[in-house]
């Protein structure tokens, strides 16, 4: 820990991430969401409320745009001006994309949001001073700010309701930013158990709350470093790579027959969530 340390490790400190080789040693948590399976039923969002101690803000604050759902289901319509949306709606579960080169991380003045060794975009509530720069710089607007002190707000957590709070997750006070953590408390628990047994976390051993609830298994979550994990296989099959701002299918003439894509890849934030395109039958 010294100047000599700095000089000796200069190369490491100048290491670019994730563009350079081998950015993650043991784990790189990633997700893939099959929009063809997603029915927009909202089970995941409610599960997220239950797991992560999210406050229910009520109608007025919801109206003021101060809702606190870490995960939201967006519903889009076709824009071809037909009388009826006769191919249904398009649902999109949206949560923190845990970008590898997260725009939010660089701008936080207090260093409250960082990149973990597991490739998560961490948000440390007690370090947060509430400058909201991270949210300003988030292209997906998936960071949620505690505009009020919800723990002491009437009818958010009446005494009985506090019993339900997850003790593994901090209840956030006013003035801090929060967002989806990929259920880091579950990840840490799983890693802890695996370490005790001297192994790595197995695929499927840990589930995020949304994944666990999802009735159609639209959400897959796992370790991208481990090639045999479902997520890694899905990413590989769809030829979506973490550190790429475009996909093979975009570069091909006429596109390929793969469904995988990430939102706003061109912004080079390298999100950790891959979506699989929704499919509609062409014969009807």
């Amino acid at each position: 820990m010294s100047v000599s340390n700095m000089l000796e490790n200069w190369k490491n400190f100048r290491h670019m991430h994730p563009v350079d080789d081998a950015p993650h040693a043991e784990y790189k948590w990633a997700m893939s969401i099959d929009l063809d399976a997603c029915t927009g039923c909202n089970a995941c969002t409610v599960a997220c409320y239950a797991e992560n101690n999210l406050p229910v803000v009520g109608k007025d604050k919801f109206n003021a745009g101060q809702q606190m759902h870490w995960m939201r289901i967006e519903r889009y319509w076709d824009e071809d001006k037909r009388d009826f949306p006769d191919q249904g709606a398009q649902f999109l579960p949206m949560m923190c994309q845990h970008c590898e080169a997260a725009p939010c991380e660089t701008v936080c003045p207090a260093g409250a949001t960082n990149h973990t060794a597991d490739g998560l975009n961490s948000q440390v509530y007690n370090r947060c001073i509430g400058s909201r720069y991270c949210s300003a710089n988030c292209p997906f607007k998936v960071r949620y700010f505690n505009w009020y002190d919800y723990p002491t707000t009437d009818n958010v957590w009446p005494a009985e309701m506090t019993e339900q709070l997850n003790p593994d997750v901090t209840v956030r006070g006013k003035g801090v930013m929060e967002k989806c953590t990929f259920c880091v408390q579950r990840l840490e628990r799983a890693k802890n158990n695996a370490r005790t047994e001297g192994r790595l976390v197995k695929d499927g051993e840990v589930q995020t709350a949304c994944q666990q609830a999802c009735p159609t298994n639209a959400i897959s979550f796992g370790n991208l470093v481990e090639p045999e994990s479902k997520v890694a296989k899905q990413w590989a099959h769809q030829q979506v790579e973490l550190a790429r701002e475009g996909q093979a299918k975009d570069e091909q003439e006429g596109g390929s027959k793969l469904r995988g894509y990430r939102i706003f890849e061109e912004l080079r934030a390298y999100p950790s969530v891959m979506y699989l395109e929704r499919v509609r039958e062409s014969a009807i």
Partner: protein
Amino acid sequence: MHRLLSLFILLAGIFANASVHAADAPPSITTADDLGPVIEQPIEFPHNRHAGLHNPADDADPSKPATGGMEINCMYCHTYARRSMVSGIPPLRKCIGCHQSLPSVRETPRIKKLFEYWDAQKAIPWKKVHDLPDFVRFNHERHIQRFVFAQGKPVQEACGYCHGDVKTMTVARRQKPLSMGWCVSCHEKDHPVDATGTKTSHGPNDCWQCHK
């Protein structure tokens, strides 16, 4: 004039020194003697008597029966430490379990108090000695697994790193700062991974390890 001049030079010096110092090495945080407050417990539990070292020589000397400890493993009472985030306070039955067959000390004031609680079937309202801010999550299990089971450190040494030399205390008292910098100072060190000590690794430095 010279006084002011020297003041300025002093200030500049301090600034320069602080910068160099800060850039070079973090302020060292004391790891001992930083005693926490004395806490009055409902029963002055003698940690030294239970966990203190056992000296056979003292056994022979009937005049000083209280000096020898019993070398009880920390985890005999704080039984969850190897399995859970929290180490656990032993339930009253655990105390009674031994003490009901120890008539020799049955009439001492502390044991009498203990049995009063037992007779009333009430938990003893122990006061917390090692408090952490509410949003910090220290995982006992991880540390015990790592240092006691994987690396093979004596349990009292492993526990003692944070809790101090409990085996010499009666009522436990905080000895370490338990501040974040203090935690980090250890996490930045390389520790042997197993008993052979050939491979080392340092503690994780992700914020989410402790703050979730």
